[in-house]
């Protein structure tokens, strides 16, 4: 008997004007948004590939060990089309002896200047418009569509007089409810499926997009959770339809509830949490960082250094690596002794800074936890969290990758620490005697410079390009990747359970009401 109701509901819905209009709107918007986001993904992927190449090339051209910096590029996940995730996350994690990757990775921030080599149009001012993803479209437009389908399920039938007729049949009231629910769910599945197919079609038509098993599984999971999310709204709509005296006021009430659930709670709850923002912790961090800086410099200046000869072409830094080109052999060993004392200080400074930042990160995570719990009661927030986790764009995945990057840094440091005791840490002058500023060399250089200017000296002799790059084949390479789908989904089990639970709650309440219902 339920089957009959389901079929009737389905047919009535499919033939209604509101379904047709809603379907058109959904198809248009999902198509448009899907197209734009896919293009965006393709662009980001190209940037990623060129970044990887560029970083590998830089590494290949490293001439001295102390300037090694490994940039771990994070590929953009294809599913970010569904869940954009948090913005301002850096697309590459920097690992170096002088920098421990933390949550405060430079970030992409947004900077406008004339020195960038990116070949994609860039306009950070467009953040003025809310960036949207498909989960936004589903969360806002499809949920409204769901409401539109069911708000007059009971009240409308009562007004038309057919409810009494239906309940007079030998069928349980609960079965009527379930029939309406399933009918509506099947109806909603149609625009949802069409939307997803549009996106998949766009991906298939785009040559740069490749789908692997995990992407397919991800899409399937997002589809499943979208259905669950929409059934939550369907259940809510049915519930309110039972309470409403007339359909039109029922619609307005449910829209009010929708505004609260979809808009006010997610935005307002986050706003409320601002009150708990750890401003104190932030100021402490600035002070502590200053403390560490002072401590480092004090220790640095305690180490004495007597330079034995003038350096020709040197790049040094208090807190980073150094590369010296034109120095004598004697000076090399002089500097080596100094570096043996100084570089461990620099490494320690990097770790100290990290520890300070991490304590701030802990406070921030705690704040984020409060904020997340404040906004959890909303179906839309739960849905968004789940989609982000499945897409791999949530902060949890990013932090997991940061942890992997830090472990890699430790491996890198065990490789590099012994190298501090070698000249190749900061110079290759021993291998290129004609670059050492001995008396005869300098005489020759000055003669050359007189004739053709200093420029020729640096172009022909004191030139880093002449030096063969280091052989880094035995250097450990990073193995950082996004945690796999299973792990990510397990991370949002609570949210998934809550989503199902809330839907069940609405259905349960509707069941209770329908049993005592007087048409």
């Amino acid at each position: 008997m339920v089957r009959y109701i389901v079929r009737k509901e389905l047919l009535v819905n499919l033939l209604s004007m509101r379904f047709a209009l809603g379907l058109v709107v959904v198809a248009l918007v999902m198509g448009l948004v899907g197209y734009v986001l896919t293009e965006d993904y393709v662009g980001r992927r190209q940037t990623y590939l060129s970044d990887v190449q560029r970083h590998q090339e830089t590494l290949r051209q490293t001439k001295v060990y102390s300037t090694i910096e490994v940039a771990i590029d994070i590929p953009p996940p294809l599913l970010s089309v569904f869940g954009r995730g948090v913005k301002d996350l850096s697309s590459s994690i920097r690992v170096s002896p002088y920098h421990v990757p933390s949550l405060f990775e430079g970030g992409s921030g947004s900077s406008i200047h004339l020195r960038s080599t990116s070949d994609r149009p860039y306009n950070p001012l467009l953040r003025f418009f809310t960036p949207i993803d498909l989960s936004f479209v589903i969360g806002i437009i499809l949920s409204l569509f769901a409401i539109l389908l069911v708000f007059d399920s009971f009240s409308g039938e009562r007004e038309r007089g057919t409810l009494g007729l239906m309940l007079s049949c030998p069928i349980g009231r609960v079965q009527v409810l379930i029939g309406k629910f399933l009918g509506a769910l099947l109806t909603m599945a149609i625009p949802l499926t069409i939307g997803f197919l549009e996106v998949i079609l766009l991906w298939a038509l785009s040559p740069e997009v490749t789908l692997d098993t995990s992407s397919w599984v991800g899409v399937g999971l997002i589809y499943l959770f979208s259905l669950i999310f929409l059934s939550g709204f369907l259940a809510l709509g049915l519930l309110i339809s039972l309470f409403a005296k007339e359909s039109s006021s029922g619609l307005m009430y449910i829209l009010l509830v929708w505004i609260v659930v979809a808009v006010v709670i997610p935005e307002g709850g986050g706003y409320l949490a601002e009150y708990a923002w750890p401003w104190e912790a932030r100021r402490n961090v600035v002070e502590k960082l200053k403390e560490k800086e002072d401590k480092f410099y004090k220790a640095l200046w305690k180490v004495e250094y007597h330079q034995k000869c003038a350096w020709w072409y040197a790049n040094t830094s208090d807190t980073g690596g150094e590369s010296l080109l034109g120095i004598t052999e004697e000076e090399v060993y002089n500097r080596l002794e100094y570096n043996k004392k100084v570089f461990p200080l620099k490494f320690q400074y990097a770790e100290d800074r990290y520890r300070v930042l991490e304590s701030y990160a802990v406070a921030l995570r705690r704040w984020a936890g409060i904020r997340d719990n404040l906004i959890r009661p909303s179906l839309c927030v739960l849905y968004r969290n789940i989609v982000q986790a499945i897409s791999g764009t949530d902060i949890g995945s990013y932090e997991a990758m940061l942890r992997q990057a830090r472990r890699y840094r430790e491996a890198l440091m065990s490789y590099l620490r012994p190298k501090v005791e070698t000249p190749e840490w900061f110079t290759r002058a021993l291998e290129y005697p004609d670059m050492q500023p001995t008396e005869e060399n300098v005489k020759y250089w000055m003669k050359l410079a007189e004739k053709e200017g200093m420029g020729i000296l640096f172009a022909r002799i004191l030139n880093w390009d002449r030096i063969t790059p280091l052989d880094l084949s035995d250097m450990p390479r990073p193995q950082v990747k996004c945690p796999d789908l299973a792990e990510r989904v397990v991370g949002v089990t609570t949210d998934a359970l809550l989503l199902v639970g809330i839907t069940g709650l609405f259905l349960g309440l509707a069941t209770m009401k329908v049993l005592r219902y007087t048409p």
Partner: protein
Amino acid sequence: MLWKIVRKDLVEHITSFRFLAVFVFTVMLMVTSVLVFSVRYRNAIEEYPRRVEGLVNKDGKTHLGSVPCEGGATVRRFPSALAFISGTGEREFPNGATFAVHGLRAIWRAPDIRGMLGSSAQVDWAFVVSVLLSFAAGLLTYKAISGELRDGTLALMLSNPVSRGTVLLAKYLAALIPLAAALSAAMAFSLIVLRATGAVQLTGDDWLKIGFVWLASLLYLSIFVLIGLFCSVFARSPLLSAVAFMFTWTCLVFVVPNLGGILARQMGDIKTPLQMKKLSESVPDRFPLTPGMSDAEVASVKLKRELARERLLIEYVQSMVRQVHLGQNLTRISPSSAFSYAVENIVGGGTYRLMRFIDNVVRFREGFFRAIIEADKKDPQSEHHYEPWSCGSSNFSQRVVDLGPAKEFRDPPPSSIECLHVAFMDMSLLILYNGLLFLITFLRFVRQDISPVPGV
């Protein structure tokens, strides 16, 4: 007669649960936005740099000789005192500038941790009015006509010596007055709360801006009252009016405004960073150095190059602003967007504020430059050549001086007159939409057949 109808509907509206619910929500959200703003603003002011980093040391003095090589001086945009009304530009746009005294070098926004740990919430007054109160407008009017039609009371009312126009006007006022009252009460209450927190001192100019925001909100709510009335007139039953309003409201408040960014990105035409870099690198070709030039001439040519690069950077930012404007123009068809832009501009935010900030930075830089040239002239040991990126020689003075008022960076917000100028188009649009909607509603209602439709 008009006022009889108004009074009847007004009482019905004010005593309804839904109006009360909306009113309570509005007040809660506006007060929350004010409270959160007070905390953020206080902290932003505390963290605002007191001196220009890189150019002025802790004692307020400047080492003239190192200025030509200083390429990393930074200043920040002054936080907006009215961000609780509309905070989009404040939150999203660049708020810092890096420069050398001979030319601007970068405009940036520091990455916001808040944004990283989840969506940065935005519940300012513009949001409350454009989403919640616009919906309330529909709530009050969707069955103004169609409800009476169904109940049969419309015919009764029109059998009185009252014109249809009057009835429409009465319904309009009966919905707008409670909304205006709710808006005013909520705004007043929030401002009292703001005063109580003492976080910000509002100037007379600020109050003027708040007044205009109130006016714009009224115009905006009037539009949605008219949309609700139109749906009510257009549909023959309250059910259909409600559905019609729902569609319209969703499209206007959610779909259209959000599509702006997407379309602008696809359609805008700006150069890539790489192209800009190449343009910057080709600047020396326009200002070549010829052998045999004196030191002074070399310094002058290099200065021209830096200024040309600054010009390029500013044009680059302007092209980005144009792309944003394109997106805004595409979405202006929605009163929601027109309203948001109007409020953003009245409050003195948005792209206008950004360009103003850049102007202030350039003006400061030029003033600072003149001041150091003056100070340098007084030093007899200097050769008085300012050569960009060259320092430590006798070209320029090596003294350490206090440059007086020239070392203070001032970034005042634009005045209310200026803001109104910028917001003029959107305010006019709001008035236009009002006029259009009233016209079509009136024309439709005047010709409507009011015999009650059976069984609907």
